[in-house]
């Protein structure tokens, strides 16, 4: 029931994720932040098994930071995505991480980019991506209404439409969503869409 989706606009990339932490029929928390800020200009929205999600995303975050300390320059989004895919692929045949990731980043020379990374180490550079049961609704919404070089307001409006569709059509829809954005000024939280206060 976890939903993560993202899209690229003009000079920015957006990632939206639900914020529920669920165990079978119980909702433990509805304000769990699943979009991790990897570094100043990268966002990683992750969905999957609870332990794997936290452990893998923190592992990637610390390694990305380590690279920067060692080499003095930050990793590009493409390099970070390939690093993540490599780690998932290596672990796949031994102790697989059940995490699906949407990586959004902004690089000075290439601009905004979005990467779709599956739990079986699929890697695709895309304009729009979605994971989870919400993807059934979000993907077609985005296919219909997305166009390249959208403004922030247009993209937020499209994200809201996707959230509304998920809320009305998914049988056990998550209560709250968080929207995070990354552009030339960095990666930051944009807003929340709540139905419950927690």
């Amino acid at each position, binding site marked *: 029931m976890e939903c993560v989706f993202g899209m690229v606009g003009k000079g920015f990339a957006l990632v939206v994720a639900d914020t529920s*932490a669920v*165990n*079978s*029929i*119980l909702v*433990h*928390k509805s304000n*769990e932040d699943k979009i991790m800020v990897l570094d100043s200009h990268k966002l990683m929205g992750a969905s999957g*098994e*609870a*332990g*794997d999600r*936290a*452990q893998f995303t923190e592992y990637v975050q610390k390694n990305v930071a380590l690279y920067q300390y060692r080499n003095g320059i930050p990793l590009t989004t493409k390099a970070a995505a390939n690093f993540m895919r490599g780690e998932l692929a290596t672990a796949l045949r031994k102790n697989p991480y059940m995490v699906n990731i949407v990586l959004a980043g902004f690089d000075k020379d290439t601009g905004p980019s979005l990467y779709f990374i599956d739990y079986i180490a699929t890697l695709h550079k895309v304009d729009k991506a979605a994971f989870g049961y919400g993807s059934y609704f979000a993907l077609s919404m985005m296919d219909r209404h997305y166009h390249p070089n959208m403004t922030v307001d247009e993209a937020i409006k499209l994200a809201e439409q996707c959230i509304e569709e998920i809320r009305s059509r998914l049988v056990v829809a998550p209560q709250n969503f968080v929207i995070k954005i990354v552009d030339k000024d960095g990666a930051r939280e944009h807003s929340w869409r709540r139905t419950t206060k927690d």
Partner: protein
Amino acid sequence: MTIFLPCLGVCKSLLQVLSRSTFSLLNQRSGLTSRLEVIMMLDFSGLESSAPLYGGSNELLSDGFSAAPSFDLPVTSDFDDFQKNSIQMVKPAKGTTTLAFIFKEGVMVAADSRASMGGYISSQSVKKIIEINPYMLGTMAGGAADCQFWHRNLGIKCRLHELANKRRISVTGASKLLANILYSYRGMGLSVGTMIAGWDEKGPGLYYVDSEGGRLKGTKFSVGSGSPYAYGVLDSGYKYDMTIDEAAELARRAIYHATFRDGASGGVASVYHVGPTGWTKLSVDDVGELHYSYYPVEPTIVEQEMTEAVVA
């Protein structure tokens, strides 16, 4: 507790084969006796029943069950428990109720004290709130041995941290230590659903950690098979600004309601409070007695009463 029954369809046909063979054996024996009985004029035909008998002739059935009457059953391996199992599938697995929440005066931690092995209550006096160190508590849900051992292990690691760094470990750090340990044993069958509650430099802290490797920071948690019931009472009565007594009563009431509805929870409701100077044990109440204090027995209204007839 589920009784393992072999697939009834196979059993039925097996029994039919066996009963036919035992029947033919009986026939042979009775054939012999009936030849004798022609002379003695005794009739044992009434003893030959078509249903398989208990005892001797069923030695061929190694499991010792008596045969069920044959009618068509739905295709499940265990029909009697099918509905119970479908509820058990969604219900949280760990047979207990524990809860903890943060409020203005610190953290309130409460738990029941029943240990169950399937349908058997093995103990009504289990300590499910584990004292990791004087300012941190852990709750136990899941495997008792797993929880006790790993909490003790966590206590050791916290103490080592104190000695090495000359300062107490934070609740964040302690819960992360436990979560990492449990993550490394993932898939190996540990069953732990615990909450780490404590007071550190940042104030009150509460984390939920489980054996699947999940770790959640929060203000209100309940773990165990009785947790949905406890959540209901807890959510509706919770306010951040409560006094210690009000919060203790909320925690106690939530545990009581969970023990009332959940068969795997019961015994005594213990309530602990973690404040800036460490934890204190507030109360231990038998849930049966709590029931009668919350819902005293009302004398039944007698509508009609029989009295002695007045004899003139």
